[in-house]
């Protein structure tokens, strides 16, 4: 055993492993998507710690910056767009999907854990000291490999990134088919249309009926149909103003006033 | 040796004709027909030229051999060559195509719901002729298979586009059934190739394959693949159900080519491929096949007896006859096999006579093929009835017609090998007579049926189309030597390749032995 695993790492592992698993379970079990995302972030951070514990400090950093920082932010951002409150209902709509999914997932997990566990039982890590030494450090080592052995892959990822940018733009960017009208143009248009340029009066509020169908009264006491929403007007659902009501209201007002 | 690639030319002529017809501008129907007829006649003329050059007495069973590497990667060559069997079947095809073209002159116009154009019909027939020539002339198993399968395509269109009400169903059934067989044959063919490749470069060359020594277990497997395809094609009981549907839906001309020539590919394949390449397996399976053939013979005949539809009746009758042909092949006697080949030709001719005559009749009565729709046609159209009767007589193998020679030789050959098989098969001739004459009696005799009074007799074109068939049936019946002269050496070759010998007469030629009887 060229590099034993010391107690510290063991503790770190168990703590972080527990938290990471917790995060993963939280991701799967939270009803709200936002909660899921936060659980996910927990897992990622713990994974970053585990990377560091596994002599991959550079990756640990990248994990925090790129994944937790950028990717998760993107997720959250989109979640905001989609709606923070979006949550799954608890009722599974596809028959047998949940049971089968859990069962198969567990079967897969058992197979993997059992298989890997038995395959790796008693295997000692070779350690990365020698590998890191060649280039004088972890980062240098990774850098050298990226720019030599994996240069083509590195170059190729550029295509990937451009594609991603392109895709985001194509699908999400709303182009305009005409120049955006300026404030001036808008106001001119509003007045030139010949319609009522200002705010329309809000409906009269006499809480004795479905209030929006009640026209507001202009200062002169005449009701203004414009104050009733257009659909109601079109349907002819405008409540006629009853003059008995008017006087009644006037009386009330008077009483209030006194 | 020949330097002129006769067989290629022979196959190319109708193909060119097909292309020419297809490329004619729309609406020039008459020209299309004439061009098609000219090309088919040219093919016939070329066939005669080839046949005249064929040396029946030569020690070389295969002649006009051509061989050009085609797909060397798989040892495939473009190999052509004919022995007597191939030659007579090519001649049969070349004869029937002009007949069918002439007979089908107005097939498309006279069918109100036809889906295709006139020129398409004739182009397809010519294209079919090319594949028919190719399939009989191929000496490369792969090439044979290619023709075997490609042949389905024009037939499929001929049935599906120009046939009767059930055409679509029938065409698909025909194609799928044939493909099923073809695919099994493909697997077996590949197996054969792989076996041949065990000693170096594999080959599809028939001559090499026929000379190969394959171990019996493998033979039995591969044989089944080939035989299955041929049994469907022929069709042997119980793989026959596509035939009544296809024949029932097809135009008479198409049906003639289908039953008269195409189905012969099955029996031809048995004699050309199954026997010489898999002698041990052939021997092993012979009892089963003979049993199936016998069942088919009687089954087909009895079902024909109970049929109410003429075209289906012909199909079942053909099935019965195919039973006989297969029987002749698998009794492994020279006489039986020669008889089978003769019967293939005879059956092609008799089918043509009967089907075309029936077709002319149906055309005169709104295409109905129901026997019940006819009565007393003899009175209204005596010439038509005469040809119809001739066809029926050819079907029942009246002595003096070529079908008799084939039938009798098959029966004799069977009897020679297996007494009871031959004896039982012979009983079939009674049922054949029963259904053939029943058909004639129901349709042609008695008082003239309603709506049939004014149907009009055959016209010149129709008679011209039928006459060659009738003449050949009679001439070859009285003088079959042109066929036998070329077929017999080929059959001797087949017999020696399977290592079979004919049973000697009980008394021998000297007549000294008094021992033994037929028991």
């Amino acid at each position: 055993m060229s590099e034993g695993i010391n107690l510290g790492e063991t503790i770190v592992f168990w703590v972080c492993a527990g938290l990471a698993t917790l995060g993963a379970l939280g991701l799967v079990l939270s009803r709200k998507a936002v909660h899921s995302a936060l659980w996910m972030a927990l897992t990622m951070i713990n994974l970053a710690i585990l990377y560091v514990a596994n002599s991959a400090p550079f990756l640990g950093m990248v994990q925090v910056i790129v994944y937790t920082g950028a990717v998760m932010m993107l997720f959250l951002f989109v979640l905001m767009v989609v709606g923070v409150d979006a949550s799954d209902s608890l009722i599974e709509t596809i028959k047998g999907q949940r049971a089968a999914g859990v069962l198969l997932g567990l079967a897969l997990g058992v197979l993997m854990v059992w298989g890997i566990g038995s395959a790796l039982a008693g295997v000692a890590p070779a350690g990365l000291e020698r590998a890191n030494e060649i280039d004088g450090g972890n980062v240098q080592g990774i850098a050298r490999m990226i720019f030599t052995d994996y240069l083509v892959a590195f170059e190729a990822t550029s295509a990937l990134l451009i594609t991603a940018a392109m895709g985001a733009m194509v699908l999400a960017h709303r182009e305009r088919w005409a120049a955006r009208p300026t404030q001036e143009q808008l106001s001119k248009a509003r007045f030139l249309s010949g319609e009522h340029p200002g705010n329309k009066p809000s409906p009269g509020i006499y809480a004795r009926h479905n209030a929006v169908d009640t026209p507001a009264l202009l200062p002169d006491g005449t009701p203004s149909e414009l104050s009733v929403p257009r659909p109601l007007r079109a349907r002819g659902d405008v409540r006629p103003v009853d003059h008995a009501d008017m006087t009644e209201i006037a009386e009330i007002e008077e009483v209030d006033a006194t | 040796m020949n330097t002129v690639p006769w067989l290629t030319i022979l196959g190319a002529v109708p193909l060119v004709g097909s292309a020419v017809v297809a490329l004619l501008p729309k609406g020039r129907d008459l020209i299309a027909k004439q061009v098609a007829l000219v090309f088919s006649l040219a093919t016939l003329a070329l066939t005669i030229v080839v046949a005249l050059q064929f040396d029946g007495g030569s020690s070389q069973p295969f002649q006009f051999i051509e061989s050009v590497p085609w797909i060397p990667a798989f040892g495939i060559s473009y190999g052509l060559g004919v022995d007597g069997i191939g030659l007579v079947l090519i001649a049969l095809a070349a004869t029937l195509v002009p007949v069918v073209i002439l007979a089908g002159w107005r097939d498309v116009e006279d069918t109100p719901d036809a889906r295709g154009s006139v020129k398409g019909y004739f182009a397809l027939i010519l294209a079919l002729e090319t594949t028919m020539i190719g399939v009989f002339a191929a000496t490369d198993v792969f090439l044979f298979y290619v023709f075997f399968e490609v042949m389905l395509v024009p037939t499929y269109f001929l049935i599906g586009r120009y046939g009767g009400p059930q055409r679509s169903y029938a065409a698909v059934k025909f194609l799928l059934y044939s493909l099923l067989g073809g695919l099994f044959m493909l697997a077996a063919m590949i197996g054969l190739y792989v076996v041949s490749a065990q000693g170096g470069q594999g080959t599809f060359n028939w001559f090499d394959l026929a000379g190969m020594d394959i171990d019996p277990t493998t033979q039995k497997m591969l044989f089944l693949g080939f035989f299955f395809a041929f049994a469907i094609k022929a069709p042997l009981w119980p793989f026959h159900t596509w035939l009544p549907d296809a024949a029932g839906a097809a135009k008479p001309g198409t049906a003639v080519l289908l039953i008269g020539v195409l189905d012969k590919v099955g029996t031809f394949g048995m004699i050309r491929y199954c026997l010489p390449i898999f002698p041990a397996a052939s021997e092993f399976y012979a009892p089963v096949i003979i049993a199936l053939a016998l069942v088919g013979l009687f089954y087909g005949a009895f079902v024909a007896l109970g049929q109410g539809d003429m075209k289906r009746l012909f199909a079942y009758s053909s099935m019965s006859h195919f039973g006989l042909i297969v029987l002749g092949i698998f009794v492994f006697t020279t006489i039986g096999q020669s008889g089978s080949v003769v019967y293939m030709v005879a059956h092609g001719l008799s089918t043509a006579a009967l089907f075309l005559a029936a077709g002319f009749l149906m055309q005169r009565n709104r295409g109905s093929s129901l026997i019940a729709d006819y009565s007393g046609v003899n009175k209204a159209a005596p010439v038509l009835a005469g040809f119809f009767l001739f066809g029926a007589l050819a079907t029942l193998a009246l002595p003096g017609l070529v079908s008799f020679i084939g039938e009798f030789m098959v029966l004799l050959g069977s009897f020679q090998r297996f007494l009871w098989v031959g004896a039982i098969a012979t009983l079939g001739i009674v049922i054949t007579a029963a259904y053939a004459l029943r058909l004639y009696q129901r349709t042609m005799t008695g008082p003239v049926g309603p709506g049939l009074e004014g149907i009009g007799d055959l016209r010149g074109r129709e008679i011209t189309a039928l006459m060659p068939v009738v003449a050949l049936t009679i001439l070859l019946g009285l003088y079959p030597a042109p066929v036998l002269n070329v077929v017999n050496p080929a059959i001797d070759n087949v017999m020696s390749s399977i290592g079979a010998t004919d049973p000697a007469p009980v008394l021998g030629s000297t007549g000294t032995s008094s021992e033994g009887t037929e028991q």
Partner: protein
Amino acid sequence: MSAPAFGMHLADVVPFNLPSIDYRLIAPILILMGAGLLSVLVEAFIPRRGRRPVQLIVVFVALLAAFAMVLAAAGSRAVTAEGSIAIDGPGLLLQGTLLLVALLAAMLMAERMVDPSGDAFAPRASTLPGSEDERQFTQRGYLQTEIWPLFCFSVSGMLLFVVSNDLLIMFVALEIMSLPLYLLAGMARRRRLLSQEAAMKYFLLGALSSAFFLYGSALLYGFSGSIDLPVIADQITAKPSQSWLLMIGAAFVLIGLLFKVGAVPFHQWVPDVYQGSPTPVTGFMAATVKIAAFGALLRVLYVALGGLQWDWAPMLWIIAILTMVVGSVIAITQTDIKRMLAYSSIAQAGFILVGVVAATREGLASALFYLIAYAFTTIGAFAVIAMARDSSGEATHLSRWAGLGRKSPIVATAFTIFMLALAGIPLTSGFIAKFSVFTAAIAAGDTWLVIVAVLASLVAAFFYLRVVVLMFFAEPGPETATVAVPSVFTTVALAAGATVTVVLGVVPQPVLEMVANADVFIR
């Protein structure tokens, strides 16, 4: 950890050896990537009106140049880019095929005559279906020319995929190939809901399969200590123990690849995606992804896992059978032609797997031939589908094809040729392909597999011929689709597809020789 990372003197640095990369050999990939970059620039700097022609020039020139480079590299056998890339017979052959097929697919994508309102792509994919924006963009004749850089990148990913020699580059290539396709799938001009749904399904399932591939790679790496395919192979022979890591790793990697191939039970994305995507993209995908995925699958199986042949062969046997049977059987009850061809492509994948299972040189050669034959036939078939239209766009429902043979005999005949080829009727490429695959399988002793394949072929023949029946045996009615008169693009693609289909069926020898000369992977 003592070595300071920064401020080191230059002399202290371990000599940095420039990686040895034979740029001549990877030129096709670079050309396509370069073309992709260039067309991004075109998007940025060329005014909208001029973009399409310039993009087309860039793409076609790039494809042809790349093809020329592939030709120039013909016969090379080299591992380059520090072991990442293996240029060898199968790789070059598949690259060449990919480029040619991509060229035809590009022509289909460039077509804008058959649809009166433009090409097959949404004028702006970001607009809401049915919105005023969409209507306006359509009216103004906007075209989403961003498809071209995506196309270029995707092709470059495929080119890389088939020659990748380690699992990382394979993964990266897989993603380069797939990401643009996910996007392209969602950009149809008509039936955009379907298109978007296709994109999402394709993407999510594709990502899932990538995860499997990646985890498998990790396990293989854990087993062998390397992600180089040849090293993995060496390790397999060197240490037969620890088989669990190897087995699960191999299984997961294969799952990732079988997904792309469309093998059962990883096939379910295929019908939905094929149906929903814009038809030129479907054609492109159907033809090229199959080639690329099989190229990678073959390389992994033959190079890395060659020593495990006895382990994976039975599994692939079963998958091949399932794939052939399920694909063929489900296809017979389909009513949408694109969906039917999707199931057909599943079935065809099964047939190719028959050749793959053989695990012999003949098996490899036959699979290569099959891929070539299949790709050209498929692209041709989709060209026809793109042309059959009615007022609402493409008429993909089979009932619309009834009587097409009478209405447009030439196009219907071409489609018939494709159907016959897919059904494996002689004198078409499909037959020779099936023939060589079956030959390889029987030679390898997989007779029963071939018999199953034969039965599946029969079932498959039924649905291929059903289309022919519809086109030719039925009367055209008011419902019958009209075949739009295409521009030279589609015409050329269609003609090329048909020509290759027939030529490969009649004189297959040259191509057979090519595949026979390319039947060994470099290790």
